């Protein structure tokens, strides 16, 4: 980690003093190879990728023309923005008034947005939600492992591994095709029914098995597409260094794939977070179940709003994070980087 701290091309304060209309460029000396400090053409070339020389903004004084132009621009922007804002507000108001003035609104308000019901239900829903979170936290790493292993099996190209690959393909196809809730049913009531020694019978465990197998199939596909999106030249470069297939995967392909699949993976995790609610069919009292118990008791839907809220509180930040990472990845790929 020596040197390289001052990123070439970025202007530094000390440059300002030296800057002139025609700033100084280190002129090409001997070859870059000979010079141990990597100055000379190589360094200047690197710098010129940013811009020939860091030019400071200091010397630029806005012309009158530009000042007038910007004032003009601001005026125009202000005008159209206010038109847009006004129209949006009008539309929103019409919508809200339309809904609240409807004959059924008081009933709806009472049935869906009753503060007292909300307060009543919240503690139970919250307690249930902690179970959702627990299921999620246990299932997530298992899903990652299953997904990665299956994806790696599917990358094996040699005919020797055909049977293994066939199993992996079969698994991903079938388990992606069946509604998750059905899988949870099947495992939740099927495994205990086998009455096997040592087989789990706890519904939460069984539900997690169902979720892991269902989402594992999805995540395997995500990983696989990530692995395949790594440019083949990277694999060739690794193999040409005499790394084995396993080493190439481990050190070169998977680390790069992992970064690329983070956004779709997080997407799947947002869904998983919501699908933890499906474990309810096996009996556990998670958030949605708690909400439905309250709703059935009082014939009021507010507890569902309560559940929606706790879910949103977790999934929205996660979705935003996903978007952010996806945008960053996209920007990176645009920048290209690779020679």
């Amino acid at each position, binding site marked *: *980690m*020596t*040197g*390289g701290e001052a*990123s070439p091309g970025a202007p530094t304060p000390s440059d300002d003093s030296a800057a002139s209309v025609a700033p100084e460029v280190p002129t090409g000396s001997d*070859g*870059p*190879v*000979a*010079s*141990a*400090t*990597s100055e*000379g*053409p*190589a360094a200047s*070339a*690197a710098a*010129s*990728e940013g811009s020939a020389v860091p030019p400071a903004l200091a010397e630029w004084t806005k012309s009158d023309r530009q000042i007038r132009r910007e004032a003009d621009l601001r005026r125009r922007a202000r005008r159209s923005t206010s038109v847009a804002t006004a129209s949006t507000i009008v539309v929103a108001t019409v919508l809200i008034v339309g809904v609240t003035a409807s004959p059924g609104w008081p009933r709806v308000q009472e049935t869906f947005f009753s503060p007292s019901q909300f307060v009543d239900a919240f503690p139970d829903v919250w307690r249930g939600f902690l179970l959702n979170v627990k299921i999620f936290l246990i299932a997530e790493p298992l899903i990652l492992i299953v997904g990665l292993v299956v994806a790696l099996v599917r990358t094996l190209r040699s005919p020797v591994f055909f049977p293994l690959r066939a199993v992996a393909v079969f698994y991903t196809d079938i388990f992606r095709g069946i509604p998750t809730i059905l899988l949870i049913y099947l495992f939740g009531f099927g495994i205990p029914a086998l009455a096997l020694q040592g087989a789990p019978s706890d519904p939460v465990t069984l539900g997690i098995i169902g979720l892991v197998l269902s989402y594992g199939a999805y995540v395997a596909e995500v990983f696989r597409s990530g692995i395949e999106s790594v*440019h083949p*030249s*990277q694999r*060739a*470069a*690794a*193999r*040409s*260094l*005499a*790394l*084995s297939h396993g*080493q190439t995967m481990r*050190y*070169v392909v998977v*680390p*790069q794939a992992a*970064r690329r699949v983070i956004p779709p993976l997080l997407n799947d995790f947002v869904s998983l977070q919501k699908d933890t609610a499906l474990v309810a069919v096996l009996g556990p009292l998670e958030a949605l179940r708690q909400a439905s118990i309250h709703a059935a008791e009082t014939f009021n839907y507010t507890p569902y709003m309560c559940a929606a809220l706790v879910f949103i509180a977790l999934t929205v930040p996660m979705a935003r994070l996903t978007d952010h990472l996806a945008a960053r990845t996209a920007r990176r790929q645009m*920048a290209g*980087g*690779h*020679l």
Partner: protein
Amino acid sequence: MSLLTVEGVWKNYHHHSVLRGIDLEVAPHEVVCLIGASGSGKSTLLRCVNLLESIDDGAIYLDGSEITDVRIDPDDVRKRIGMVFQSYNLFPHMTVLDNVTLAPRKVHKVRPEQAEAEARELLARFGLADKAGEYPDRLSGGQQQRVAIVRSLATQPRLLLLDEVTSALDPTLVTEVLSVIRELKDAGMTMIIATHEMSFARDIADAVCFLEGGVLLEHGSPEQIFTAPEHPRTRGFLQRVLDAGRL
């Protein structure tokens, strides 16, 4: 004895042959340049030598033993051959140092400290001492290619294959990479270089091979090939390159 012998090598893709019975000998310390139009098979030949492609006929010998034998572990062969590609060379998720030390550590089982010390020495020798901690995307194209060369040197290969290492570079960055290769030649490295830089080939090669349609049409000293090509196709190719202002 020659270091590398390519004997009647054929390579087919689907319905056409990309290499059509290539014969080539490379002596130790010799620098061979492959020239020819796009698609003539230069890259494919290099990839076959490095066993990144299986061949469909013929044989390749390194240090006298056949490396295309089915019983040979390709990784053992690749340990002795370095290769640098036109693009997507470096591992973008690793620092320059990690790029360079990966193979020594994981393949050649060199101790990490030793691998690092050797890598730093090599990097310094090629003017990259202060880039060890950088990630590849912070480097210029020329620097990236220099790192790629250093990386392939770190395992002390017997033979270095260079595949158009400058053609993805901005023209003003080409010089720095070419001078690295010149230095390697002076240090006695055996190299096979696929290139579009005719003036460079003329300057550095001990022998130049002209490929067309997967056939090695002409093989000779640079003077002979560039000034008095025997084959009319070679003349045609050189003429076209000249027209493009690249000779």
